């Protein structure tokens, strides 16, 4: 079952089309990576799902029902543009934001204490926000986002401003949320974290959805049939002359007598490549190289913007 579905969502700002018939679906207990260059319409889509702005066309469904303001309490949203009241005390502010989510004061305090201990910021409860470091403010914002225990989250650039240790802490928390059954939309420009966390991907460019699917399927879809072969050979071998035309050597590097070659396989299979190589070299390693999300992102976006090439 899909926890959130957007059907043909179009959003206009005057003459500007911020989203053009974009449909997405977030599967239950999955992490969906929402990707796209700046200005593609990601934030607009996220705001629509959060019931902050409204689509001109199309509909949003939350757990099968048409999205209303009531559903908002079941969403944990960490916006990209996030801040805090600088002059307010940390604890007081966290309670306030929790109350706005519909929690009772007492409930909020109990849960906040737990999370403040866990994130090691308990001693800051009575300090003013302006005394906090950026990382600590980010922790506070994250806590407030998940405090009311929703089953659906939207994290927009959750790692910005964090040091690597805290990035790790947060990643583990996000995976923990998923383990506990949550569904998540994860929007970021950090492709490495997408590969680590996401199950599905949606790529938006210039207000339109240009790519969608499971992370593995997409990588499979864009594979270049490249194989990395590590081998040893006693003397310098002329690989290019030994291999049939179906194989194209992209690169080769030698370290002492250990060679690493990147070979593109056309019209045949990996087995044929191995068969062709076996008489001449002794193989140490062999694996298919899939494109990184980073490469897929760049190639797909550039395909639509020829000017960038």
């Amino acid at each position: 079952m899909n926890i959130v579905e957007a059907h043909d969502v179009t959003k206009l700002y005057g003459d500007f089309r911020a989203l053009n018939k974009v449909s997405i679906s977030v599967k239950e207990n999955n992490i969906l990576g929402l990707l796209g260059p700046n200005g593609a319409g990601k934030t607009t889509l996220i705001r629509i799902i959060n019931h902050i702005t409204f689509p001109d066309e199309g509909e949003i469904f939350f757990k099968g029902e048409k999205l209303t303001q009531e559903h908002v309490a079941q969403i944990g949203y960490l916006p990209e543009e996030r801040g805090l009241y600088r002059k307010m005390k940390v604890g007081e502010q966290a309670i306030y934001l929790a109350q706005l989510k519909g929690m009772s004061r007492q409930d909020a305090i109990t849960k906040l204490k737990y999370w403040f201990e866990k994130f090691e910021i308990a001693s800051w409860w009575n300090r003013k926000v302006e005394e906090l470091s950026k990382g600590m403010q980010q922790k506070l914002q994250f806590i407030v986002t998940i405090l009311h225990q929703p089953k659906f989250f939207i994290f927009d650039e959750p790692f910005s401003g964090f040091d690597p240790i805290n990035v790790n802490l947060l990643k583990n928390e996000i995976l923990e949320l998923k383990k506990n059954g949550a569904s998540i939309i994860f929007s970021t420009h950090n492709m490495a974290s997408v590969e680590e966390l996401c199950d599905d991907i949606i790529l938006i460019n210039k207000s339109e959805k240009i790519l969608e699917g499971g992370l593995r399927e997409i990588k499979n879809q864009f594979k270049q049939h490249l194989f990395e072969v590590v081998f040893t050979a006693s003397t310098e071998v002329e690989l290019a002359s030994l291999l049939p035309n179906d194989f194209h050597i992209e690169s080769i590097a030698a370290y002492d007598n250990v060679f690493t070659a990147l070979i593109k396989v056309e019209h045949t299979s990996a087995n044929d490549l191995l068969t062709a190589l076996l008489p001449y070299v002794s193989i140490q390693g062999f694996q298919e190289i899939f494109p990184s999300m980073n490469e897929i992102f760049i190639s797909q976006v550039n395909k639509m913007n020829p000017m960038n090439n």
Partner: protein
Amino acid sequence: MNKILIIIKREYLQAVKKKTFLVMTILGPILMAGLIITPTLLANYGKDNQNIAVLDESGLFSKLNSPNDKSIHFTYVDKDLLVLKKELIDKKYDALLYIPYNSTTLGGMIYSTSSLGTGVISSVLAAMKRDLSNEILLNEFNISQDSLNMYIENQTNKIMLGQTFIDKNGEESKKASYLKEIQLVIGYISGILIYLFIFMYCSMVLRNVLEEKTNRIVEIIVSSVKPIQLMIGKIVGVALIGLTQLMIWIVSLVIILGVVRSSFPEMFEKNNTPIAVSEQMPTDYYKYTPSDSQSGINVNESIVDNEFVTSLMEINFVYLILFFLFFFVTGYFFYASLYAAIGGAVDNDTDTQQFMLPLTLPLLLTFIVSQYIAENPDGTLAFWFSIIPFTSPIAMMIRMPFGMEAVQSWEIILSCSLMVLGCVASAWIAAKIYRTGILMYGKKITYKELWKWIRYKN
């Protein structure tokens, strides 16, 4: 609804806990008192050149010199008393000193249309005493210095000076009417209060909205509540802060008045008759006999306070307070919505200037023309200023104390209805601008852009 309350509560507590709130609460009344008392003092003491016409039928004061303080100027006239009274009503003079011919008593009557500044009567009396002695010395008597001094003392002590007020229709009365002054002062005070309140608290709304936007907390909040709820919460919260301040001021004023009242109870008794010239002197001056005159020269200032209280009681305060609250609240909401919209639209303080001007200008303009409105509360200017929601809160409060003669019921109804409509319209426009603006960063906002936002469907 519950969420709006949470927002209001935060907004309120954050401001009330601040030191600036305490400072403003204490400084406010002092500033206010200064603002009101200074012009009053200036009006009383700085009234330069009171032009007093002198009609001396006795011939004893034919060379009355202007008093030492130079603020009073005597002009000798030789016209019929009735003609002079008319001229007085036409404001040719500030006052008229009439000294009739009389063999038994010395003295005169000062006629004026409104109360003269403090000390004018005593100055005139002093001048009469001083110059009488000279006259007598030079012209009438030829006696020993001792007897002369004794005689002068005797006579000058008997000089009487009465005071009579003439109203527009020529009706004469012994009592000064402070009504017009009081109406003016009440109008100005309520006008100033509304003006200050709108300025102070609307800029507070602007600041708080801008703070949320520049702090980037606004998106976190609008993911829990609707932007309109946030806006209403802020505006109401700030209104409550202002009302709290106002209540503190009113309560302390009541306490102060209570203390004053128990300390000087005679000031507040309506028909108290202190020993004073104007009360004791019969209307018919000629029947006056020297034997009654012992206390005649005591110009007792306490009568002034008494008349003041009497005039004060002619004002319908319940009616005024109700309208004050109405315009106070609606005026605030009208402007606060627009200020909130500006705060939501712009990114930083410097950008606010271009949008602030059209909002501060109407208020300032009303303040500038308030004098004309007060002088002519049933005029065209007063009418137009009091039906435009941008200016009506102040304009109406200046007019209201003058009562039904100045502002007719249909005008009040029209003004109030337009004010309410204005509030609805400004809230609607503000909500549209605010909703779009608070999530928009780094864009240079123009009026054209704002107009586009207003026309967005959702």
